[in-house]
């Protein structure tokens, strides 16, 4: 695994640490930032240590990312991102979950796409899951969900 892969995250963490320290030591009231100052000092010290080790190529722990992993991950990550950051509120929780569930199943289920039976199976699983969720949360517990549109 390349050294760059370790330098990047540890550099980012160091940057966040410096930002946190900068805010902690400059903002008022001092009383409210006493504890953040303490933490950010330790934060920056440890982050610098890790960053130094990464630059020297001595980071041993962690498997890093491979091209194949990223390729596999991306479609799911994008669908999940759309679901969480937009659809869950815009379409209503149950609608958005139904759609996302079905899409994710289609993306990652190894069964062949060509056969109609695969699609029927996926639809049944989606319907079953939604029925359980809706029955438990909406009907039995009467709990609130993001904008109860459609349900």
């Amino acid at each position, binding site marked *: 695994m390349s050294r760059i892969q370790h330098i990047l995250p540890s550099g980012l963490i160091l940057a966040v640490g410096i930002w946190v320290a900068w805010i902690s030591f400059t903002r008022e009231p001092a009383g409210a930032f006493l504890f953040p100052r303490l933490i950010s000092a330790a934060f920056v010290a440890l982050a610098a240590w*890790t960053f130094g080790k990464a630059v020297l190529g001595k980071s041993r722990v962690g498997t890093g990312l491979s091209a194949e*992993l990223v390729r596999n991950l991306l479609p799911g990550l994008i669908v999940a991102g759309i679901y*969480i950051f937009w659809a869950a509120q815009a379409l209503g929780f149950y609608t958005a979950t139904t759609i996302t569930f079905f899409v994710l199943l289609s*993306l990652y289920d190894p069964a062949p796409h060509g056969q109609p039976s695969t699609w029927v199976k996926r639809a049944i*699983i989606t319907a079953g899951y939604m029925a359980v969720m809706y029955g438990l949360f909406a009907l039995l517990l009467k709990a609130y969900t993001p904008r109860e549109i459609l349900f």
Partner: protein
Amino acid sequence: MEFIYYFGDVFAPMSFMLLLIGTVGGLILGATPGLSPTMAVALLIPFTFQLEAAQGLILLGAAYTSTVAGGAVSAILLKIPGAPANIATTLDGHEMARRGKGARALQLSFLASAVGGVIGVLLLIFLTPVLSQWALAFGPSHLFWLAILGVTIIGSLESRSVVKGLLSGCIGMWLATIGFDDIMGAQRFIFHPALGGGVNIIAALIGIFAIPQVLNMFAKGRNDPNVEVIHVQKSPLREAVVELFSKSRALVIGTVTGSFIGLIPGVGGQIAGLVAYDQSRKMSSTPEKFGTGHSEGVIAAEAANNAMVGPSLVPLLTLSIPGSPTAAVLLGGLLIHGIFPGSDLFDNYPDVAWTFINSMLVGQILMCIFGLYVAGLAARVAQVPQSVMAAIVLGLAVYGSYSVQSSMGDVYVMASLGIMMFFLEKFGYSAAPLVLGLILGPIAEANFIQGTMIADAGDGRMGYFFTGTLNIVLIAIVVLSVAYSAFMELRARRQMQQTEALA
């Protein structure tokens, strides 16, 4: 012995039915990722309006005990702790499940929960007056040292790289300072409106544990030739019982730590499991096995977090001070029936008070029986196809983080933290120390600030934080804990060098 007199009430048909509903319902709610015991109890309160006071409390008491145990199910099978109490259970429990020993892990966790839980409730019954004094003995300086003790545990949670473990802990503590500060009301690090209320611990817990799981399943891809087919091993109950008692050291450490730490208002419930895990690792003859699917870890953690249930109610029942969020919800449930907890509770409403406590005692046993019954079945969750599992967990994570305080902001926080954690894990940072920092940060900060304010008005900071028996005892434990971790680290390093030299 008065409590025996009221046992009959628990077994009245209506009460027993409620007890069963509470236990089974509690287990299911507790096992649902994203529903914490506090949430589960709060959701059940409206149902108690129609019931008599004693019956309503039976339902709540049974639900409280079984949701805590139920949290172990998702912790073991999905690596998603339902509440902070279950974090320690994920460490070894999920490793066991990955090796097909999920059924055994579940059996052990239910058995250990029942043993710890029953002892905890018995302590509540017999030692309440003594225990309430112990709960009060912890002032700001002691709670501060206790939080520091919690931080030292990071060394044993993260055995791969202590520096990265400590860094994760720092990140967690920083995340905890986001939002309005509790005491001054100043705004800190609110760089997005969703963070106005700070990072909610339950939402963070769901994100940090559940989302990396989901993403890892995605990362395996659609046509992975070596799809993990986990062979779920059968686990005869008799063998589980034998194993539990052969690991009696972990069981005892878990129960004792859980009972005493659980008492401390505001701190106990959240860290009891982790402290017990750490202690039993340090006292074990095979500390290196912890974290690799070692049953002692599951036993200690689960015995501790159920042992805590009884004692955590002591401050509530005797002093009317809720020691945990769940206790605060239970207080609401009591008040709504016109019952004021206080030292005279057992004189004024003996039937209600004792029935409530008895129901927790019987609830522990019912929970264990029911849990053991479904353990083998539940372990099959490991065989659910990855694609289905990922989608299910994702939906539950969104639901769970939203429902904590009906806020979309918490969902965004959950998802952002989760995605961040997925990448960090790939580079050797780990979730448990980060969450520990998130939990302990506010405790350490609030008590440090209150302590300094009190100390400045009185006998100075040195005198306030460093004198007094309890302070000194706690400091000594902190020093010992650090020294021991360092010693273990050195020994491990020397061993590694020796093996390298030989090879």
